[in-house]
């Protein structure tokens, strides 16, 4: 095994815990959903496009967002559901851009299918807008090299992995995920950083994501 490179700046694992804040806003039709998507806080858009990742971390990676689930399963608009499911979240670096894409996808669909405006959700099946409130806390884990990094990665909470991969990039608007950023800038390993950053984490469960990153880094350590 080659010597393990030590970083100048350590990687400090943080964790992100969240509370769901209710807004009292609800939609029963696609038109109402669209209007509210345009005006609710970004924290709502974030909640409804990322909640499933954390709450259903053990399942196959579907359905990835609440809007897609609601229009398909409650309103019966399967085609729009598919269009919303297939929005490539990785392409969007801010919640603002993601919101615009979701809204325009619904708008385009309504233009093509005006009858879809007539669909109503049954009582009790309305879409309720919820905000995600994030609390970011440092953990006790601070590492200086890949070996230490991978050992912590194996045992850290899923919330920590979630924070460094998803929230840091999209909600805190960093250029890439925290792991790739540290590996590239503090360890100087551009290749490994790229390998991790090119995953589409939205098509894995969080546990699978943990396993994949652990495997890649473990392989790198013995190279």
């Amino acid at each position, binding site marked *: 095994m080659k010597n393990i490179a030590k970083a100048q700046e350590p990687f400090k694992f943080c964790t992100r815990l969240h*509370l769901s804040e209710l807004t009292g806003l609800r939609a029963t039709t696609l038109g109402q959903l669209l209007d509210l998507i345009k005006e609710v806080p970004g924290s709502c858009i974030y909640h409804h496009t990322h909640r499933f990742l954390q709450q259903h971390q053990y399942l196959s990676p579907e359905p990835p967002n609440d809007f897609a689930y609601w229009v398909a399963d409650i309103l019966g608009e399967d085609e729009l559901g598919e269009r919303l499911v297939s929005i490539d979240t990785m392409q969007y670096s801010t919640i603002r851009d993601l919101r615009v894409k979701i809204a325009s996808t619904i708008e385009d669909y309504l233009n093509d299918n005006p009858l879809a405006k007539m669909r109503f959700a049954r009582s009790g099946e309305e879409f309720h807008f919820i905000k995600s409130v994030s609390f970011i806390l440092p953990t006790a884990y601070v590492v200086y090299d890949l070996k230490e990094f991978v050992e912590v990665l194996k045992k850290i909470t899923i919330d920590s992995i979630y924070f460094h991969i998803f929230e840091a990039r999209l909600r805190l608007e960093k250029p890439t995920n925290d792991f790739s950023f540290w590996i590239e800038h503090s360890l100087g390993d551009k290749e490994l950083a790229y390998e991790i950053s090119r995953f589409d984490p939205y098509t894995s469960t969080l546990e699978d994501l943990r396993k994949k990153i652990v495997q890649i880094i473990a392989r790198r350590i013995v190279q």
Partner: protein
Amino acid sequence: MAKIEEYIPLVGQSVIDDLSLLSERLKGKVIQHINSTPVGGGVAEILNRMVPLLRELGVDTKWDVIKGGEQFFAVTKKFHNALHGRAEEITSRDFEVFMETSQQNVEGIDTYGDVVFIHDPQPIALVKKKSANKWLWRCHIDVSNPNDKIWGFLMDFIVQYDSAVFSAPAFSQKLPIRQFLISPSIDPLSDKNKELPQETIASVLRKYDIKKDKPIITQISRFDRLKDPLGVIEAYLRVKKYTDCQLILAGGTAEDDPEGSKVLEEVQERAKNDPDIHILLLSQNDIEINALQRASDIIIQKSIREGFGLTVAEALWKAKPVVASNVGGIPLQIKHKYSGLLCHSVGGASFAMKQLLNSPEYAKKLGENGREHIKNNFLITRHLRDYMLLFLSLYHPEDIVRLC
């Protein structure tokens, strides 16, 4: 009572580490819970488990109880029913009784907490004592269709709180204060949910003369029309036409509920000619409920209305395939076809049960997914975490709170 470290084998060390991280941020704050009773009812049950655990984590937690006579609690029971959407005649005298007792409590209770955490409508008027401290109102009731008169009356108090907490998104209303979604939870180490030896399960079945020679379908619920026990029997009979099986309807006695006794009679009458239907009156015996759930092949919860429906979480925690109505908090616990099957009717319930009996691998997968979902979202450890985050939110109005 279980200690916090006893949860580590169930949820992992890292989850408990997170709880410790949060509790450090609450050092120096006194959290004062206030409700209407120290025993009996869901709120007292959960506080009896949570208060000692919060203390063990280092959060200075107190619990006080208001005083109220028979008249007061008769009025608050009416409020409770009206908030659930039931027709109730509420007189101006009822409001006077509520306010008189509330005033006595305002004068008699010391609200010393840095955070005063009020549970349900009975102590809601204590907020008149609000000073520089923070006040939370926790609504444990389904208020998706509340009686306007009562809701309007309570609203005068609610708006004085810093934040409100509800159990399901459908229970939220437009409010001028912050409101949070915190689901209730089950305690995996309580008598109702802990692992049981096979011998205990077998002895409970023996006690009630139930043989494990054909699949068991079970609904655990009090005998109440809103739990639709007659609909459960109808669904079971439709299943039995194709697959031989047996049904257990088990629930508490309904001595204080005249309608409950009538429902029980109707259920017994409907079941009398079928020896495979077991009607069991259990007087709050958690070990027996646990054993019956564990002995079952399918758990059904065919409620017409439901507050949250924690019996579903209890069943899923035992990795049982569940068929349940798509009402109240149940869809939060079951994602249809992932972690159970949701239904809207007797026909839907019987079809789902037939599917599960005929596809045991599918049923097993749903049960396993259900257990994971409960583990991640509906155990008391998640509830502790949410409550500590809630307390912190009182000091942080922003959407992204950096505690680094």
